């Protein structure tokens, strides 16, 4: 007997199953319905909540009127923080006028020594101040991970109240899950040494969020 059958056999006998093949109707129904469970009370407006929570997680946030204004804002942020003015961006952002803003943003896969990564996001979650990023050809996962500075563009109309709303949006727009769904809530951190919170463990040291809308 295979390990699989032995393990499932023990599980079935523990659950006192009468037949070897269980009736999947009930679990199929639960999965098909995927009911929304308990959420915290919502006494906030999504954009304000997202901004407040993101800032509490030590991300910085600014708001612009249009996507065209993004390259200049990125340049201002990088110069103000004494950061390099080049790096990688998602291929989905290649059409923005980075050169016009004096930036060298390359739409290639991120490397271990890239210092700045600019990404968009699938949507953002107000409850926790979280970005939801989907992996894909035009939205590679490493761009938000390898560089020391992550700049993320969030369209305000894509801020949803809860994670469950993000799943609903994903099912509606994409049908199935991409290889990787990454929820990002501020710069990477560790508190392993004497429970002292230190920013920039293995991922970015800083996350700057540019709201557009």
């Amino acid at each position, binding site marked *: 007997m*295979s*390990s699989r059958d032995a*393990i*499932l056999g*023990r*599980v*079935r006998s*523990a*659950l006192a*199953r009468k037949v070897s093949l*269980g009736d*999947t109707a*009930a*679990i199929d129904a*639960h*999965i098909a319905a*995927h009911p929304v*469970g*308990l959420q*915290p*009370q919502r006494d906030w407006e999504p954009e304000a909540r997202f901004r407040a929570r993101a800032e509490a997680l030590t991300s910085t946030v600014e708001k612009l009127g249009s996507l065209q204004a993004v390259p200049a804002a990125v340049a201002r942020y990088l110069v103000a923080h004494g950061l390099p003015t080049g790096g990688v961006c998602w291929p989905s952002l290649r059409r923005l006028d980075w050169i016009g803003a004096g930036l060298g943003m390359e739409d290639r*896969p*991120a490397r*271990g020594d890239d210092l700045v990564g600019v990404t968009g996001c699938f949507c953002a979650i107000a*409850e*926790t101040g*979280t970005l939801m990023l989907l*992996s*894909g*050809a035009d939205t*590679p*996962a490493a761009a938000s*991970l390898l560089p020391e500075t992550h700049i993320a563009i969030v369209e305000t109309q894509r801020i949803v109240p809860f*994670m*469950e709303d993000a*799943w609903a949006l994903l099912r509606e727009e994409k049908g*199935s*899950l*991409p*290889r*990787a*769904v*990454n*929820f990002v*809530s*501020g710069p*990477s*951190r*560790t508190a*392993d*040494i*004497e*429970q002292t919170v*230190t*920013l*920039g*463990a*293995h*991922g*970015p040291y800083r996350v700057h969020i540019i709201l557009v809308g």
Partner: protein
Amino acid sequence: MELRSNEFKARAAANLGDAKLQKGLGLIKVKAVVNRANAVAEFGDFEALREAGKEIRNRALADLDLYLERFEREATARGAVVHWAENASDACRIIVDIARENGVKKVAKSKSMVSEEVGLNEALIEAGIEPVETDLGEYILQINDAEPPSHIVMPVIHKTVEDVADLFHEKHGTPRKTDPAALTREAREILRPQFLSAEMGISGANFIVAETGSTLIVTNEGNGRLCTTLPRLHVAITGIEKVVPTLEDASVLLRLLPRSATGQAITNYVSLHTGPKRLEESDGPQQFHIVLVDNGRSKLLAGEMREMLRCIRCGACMNHCPVYQAVGGHAYGWVYPGPMGNILTPSYVGLENAVALPNAATMCNQCGVVCPVKIPLPDLMRTLREEQMARGLKPWAERMGLALWGWAAQQPALYALGTRIAARVMKWMGGSEKLIHRLPFVSGWTDGRDFPAPAGKTFRELYQRSKR
């Protein structure tokens, strides 16, 4: 991991006098406990959330076979390979085989308690494959001669910043530094090339989602993301009990887990992995293997410890345990310390191999109160204690003492007489100080502290008098 649970008493006694350990444990009370309390208060109706979490975990366990099969089907349909491991050696063999077949020399690992449970690092090393722990705490332990972790969330809680400073200075040959941020930077710079050169990444899974065939990990450092994004192979190893039905169910548990573990509303990263790299993608592993480990879990499902399978490994029970807070994680002698370990260790390695653990509790029920999925930990410990008595695993004197007490307690007149005599004798022993410095048979207790002398009358005597 080497099992040393039957050395609990000796190691606990030694740890009480370990000043560095006590400093680290002291921080739990002022940081982890306070952070959790703040996060719980901020949420609102956390009790309702705990109940919801319990129901979700119970739902998954009630149809565990069906949810596992559904998970396997969905994961396979998306190109992942699902493996089933009956025990620790199975799990190691499966992963070593995957590594060998693919010419893997180096593995970047993110934190996985199941990998500790099955002794994966030792197996990889034996096969000539180099595992590199990349979680900062686990990395510190690995370069310190593969020291075991002392906490499931904060593995180096027993080490001071000075310890880490000395260790990095010695092992890295760099100037000694005592700033946690500088030490973290040093580890980052040493580990970054390891992520980039490892052929295989190994992660655990906090949950696996039946609906989508995804594995889910929560991390703060980002090392979990690196391990699952950069190497050409990704292996996720986890227990069969970790399945949850839907993404919505996972969302509810994600409100409970970080709040209970570290007091965060959400961890910095929550990552779901569904299948390997798609053809058009520029990053991601070409192969994605998922190893589902039983190693005693199906046995728990059948027995009185079934509720323990709800556990989502947050560590709140140990953070709030007065015994853990005093003796630290190493005393427990296996992977899972604290109240969860008091149940899991005897359940997985045998009650006779962890005799002290179900008794390493004051039964204060702090663990039961904070458990995010409402596991009645003290009740389960009591059940294990009863089983120890029934199987004769307790010392002879303790069994005889309890039998004698049990007999006396069933003779009301004798019991009343006995307690009246004891109350008077103990009052006399206390003298004018009203403190007893030494008691026969319980010198282990009175060696370290005085016993307050009773007032000389039993409760029943006082009650009779007040009724008159």
